[in-house]
Every structure is written in structure tokens, then in C-alpha cells.
């Protein structure tokens, strides 16, 4: 009896094996196609809004947008406006008798255009990205010198204060700059179609139109200009909404399906 039972087990095993072969037919697997949303994602930078509220010397906003071109490639852009007032003081922070050397305001608009390449392999149903990107940035801005003093290390004629200057005060207009930017960032879908994103950026200044007697010390969209270097750093922290325009099937990977 037991021998019969064991034999029948083998029989079922054989049947099972046969039926499995049947379901391996790829036509049947592909009958349900996995599609992903494609569309335009628009949003705003939260960090610049927060900084506007928290910091009296700064106001700015940035709109972010991207459009999905293919599985991993996005057309991306940022559009913004920033105004910042900065004070440059003489000496280091530990010196109690610091003097203001000059005080200026930079104000202007910028646009950045480029692409993002997603490097993150999502699980089924997820639409997150960890991306590397490149941008070309362009700004038009003005710098206003609000006040300044003449630096003079010898204090014989002005023992108490540095002499205040007046000849350069005012607005230096018609300034512009352009730069290339490397972006590393991520975007995660919090709720349906709502994304939270963050990125860090390394800019390289390629064009810089500045005033004769007052260089571009800060550029909207680029940030602080460092002397003797073309590099600048930035970041953003965005929330955005995906306007789904259409869905497209995810191309199956070669390893998933074996040709019959």
C-alpha cells in the first residue's frame, strides 16, 4: 500500500512538473503589463521659502520642474528669484571691535535647464528616484552697495573708525553669470503623485559679467562666489506634484524573460 502511495506521489510530481512547464509560456505572463506614470512634475523649493521667513536678509523662491522622457531620463529645470543682503566685516569673529567693511544687496533671477538620470531601481509600484544631473544655469542680477568704508590699516588720520566711502554707492546693474552645475539628489513619492525631494549641487562658473569696481560676490541661483575659484555650492529641498499625462509600459529587462 505504502509503495502505491509513494508511486502516486511520483506521478503527481510528474504532473506538477508538466503543468509548470505549461505556465512558463511567456505569452501568458505578459498578459498583465506593468505601466508607469509619465508626466510633468512641478513644485517649489521649501528651503528658500523657509529661509525667507527665518532670515531678514534673504528672500527668494524657486520653482522646480521635470518632465520624464524615458525610463530613467528626465528633463529638469529650476526657475527662481533671490535677494540677499550681506555684510562683510573686517577681522575675525572673535574680535569684539569688528568694523563693517561693506554692505551690499544682490538681487536677480535665474534659470537652470538640464537633465536628471535616475540611478535607482524601483520595486514594483514605486516611483522614487536617486539621480545624477547636469544643468546649465543663467542669471541676470544687480548688486547694490549700501554702505562701505575704506580699508586702511594705518589709523593715523582716522584713529577711531575707518573712513566712510561715498563714491561707489548705488546699484551696479546689468550683471549676469552662467555656470554648469552637477546635481546629486533624490525624490521620493510621499503620497500619490506628491514628491519630496532634495539635492546638493556643485556649480562651475563659466561666464561672469561684473561691474568694474565691484565684482559679483554672490550670484542668484549660484550662491557665494569664492575668490580664486570658479566653484560654488548649493542645495534645495523641494515638494512637487506629478501631473500624470500618460502611462507607459515598463520595458521588461532581458533577464526577466527567456525567449521560447
Amino acid at each position, binding site marked *: 500500500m505504502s509503495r502505491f502511495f509513494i508511486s502516486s506521489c511520483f506521478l503527481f510530481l510528474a504532473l506538477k512538473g508538466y503543468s509548470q512547464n505549461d505556465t512558463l509560456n511567456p505569452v501568458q505572463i505578459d498578459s498583465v503589463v506593468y505601466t508607469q506614470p509619465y508626466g510633468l512634475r512641478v513644485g517649489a523649493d521649501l528651503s528658500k521659502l523657509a529661509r525667507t521667513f527665518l532670515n531678514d536678509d534673504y528672500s527668494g523662491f524657486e520653482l522646480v520642474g521635470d518632465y520624464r522622457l524615458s525610463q530613467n531620463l528626465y528633463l529638469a529645470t529650476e526657475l527662481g528669484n533671490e535677494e540677499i543682503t550681506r555684510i562683510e566685516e573686517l577681522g*575675525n569673529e572673535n574680535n569684539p571691535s569688528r568694523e563693517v*567693511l561693506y554692505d551690499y544687496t544682490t538681487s536677480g533671477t535665474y534659470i537652470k535647464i538640464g537633465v536628471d538620470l535616475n540611478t535607482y531601481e524601483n520595486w514594483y509600484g514605486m516611483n522614487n528616484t536617486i539621480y545624477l544631473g547636469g544643468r546649465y544655469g543663467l542669471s541676470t542680477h544687480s548688486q547694490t552697495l549700501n554702505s562701505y568704508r575704506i*580699508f*586702511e590699516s*594705518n589709523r*593715523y*588720520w582716522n584713529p577711531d573708525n575707518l573712513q566712510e566711502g561715498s563714491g561707489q554707492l548705488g546699484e551696479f546693474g546689468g550683471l549676469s553669470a552662467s555656470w554648469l552645475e552637477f546635481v*546629486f539628489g533624490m525624490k521620493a513619492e510621499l503620497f500619490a503623485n506628491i514628491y519630496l525631494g532634495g539635492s546638493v549641487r556643485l556649480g562651475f562658473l563659466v561666464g561672469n559679467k561684473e561691474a568694474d*569696481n565691484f565684482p559679483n560676490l554672490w550670484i542668484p541661483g549660484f550662491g557665494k562666489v*569664492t575668490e580664486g575659484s570658479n566653484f560654488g555650492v548649493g542645495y534645495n529641498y523641494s515638494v512637487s506634484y506629478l501631473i500624470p499625462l500618460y502611462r507607459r509600459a515598463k520595458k521588461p529587462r532581458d533577464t526577466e524573460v527567456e525567449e521560447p
Partner: protein
Amino acid sequence: MLLIIVLLLCSWACEKDDICVDGDTPLLIIRFYDIADTTELKRVPSLRVIGLGQSTVVNTFNDRTATDSIAIPLRISNTNTDFIFIRNSADEEGAETGNIDTLGFNYETREVFISRACGYVVNFDNLAGDLPSDASPWVQNLSIVNPNVQNQSSAHVKIFY
């Protein structure tokens, strides 16, 4: 990827210090020459220089020393600065016994942006000097070597006595 993040952090951290080392409002450099041999430097004995209107001596060299080269600060709030040059300066019962000459310098000021840490300094252009007008001056002649005072690498004025 990690390398990029480290580089980014580094470029934040490695920001240049905001300490001004790139330039300064230049001092006027004067060298003293022998009137008999105008190529020969000559030390002025016990030289004292006071800015006209100031109560203290110029703070850029040791007062009442023998020297053939001094650097003195010009006024940036004005386009002329007068100095009292005293040779053989000494006090006798509170009175100056040396030979006192007043020399004036005229110039144009130009504000120049040097760098982020230094901001603006003044350069002096079209420098001209006035000889003393008193009865027995010790300064015999004065010549402007470099009328544009932009740095302190060489003399701007020669004084012959």
C-alpha cells in the same frame, strides 16, 4: 558617489578665511638724497614727521631717528595732506629746536575694490608736492618719482637736502 559628497562637504568647509591680506591703502614712500650728489641717499638726523593738524607724530617709523627712507599715510578724506618735517628734532624746555619745514602733497583719490575680505582701498593719482615756504628751509628740492601711489614697492617721492 561618496567621493562627490565628501568633495561637496569639503568645498563648504574649505572656504577661504575672511582675513584681508590682498591689499591696503598704500603709504607714501619718501627717500632722502644728498643735494650735492643727487644719487646718494642721505640719512636725516633725528627726523620727526607730524601730520599738520595732528597732535601726535606719524606712527610708521621710530620718532627722532636717523633715516633715509620713510613711509607716511596720506589723508583719504581729502586731496591734500600737509606734513611738518623736522630735522635735528629735539626739545629744549618744551620747545622744538630743530629745523621745521612744512611740505604739502596734492593728489586725487581713487577708490578701488581689492577683494572680498578687504573691500575698498584708496589709491592716489597725480601726486604733486609743494616745497616749504619758510625763510630757512632744510629741504632744498623735491621730485615726484612715481605720481601714482598704488603700492609700496618703490619710492614715490625724492627729497633733496
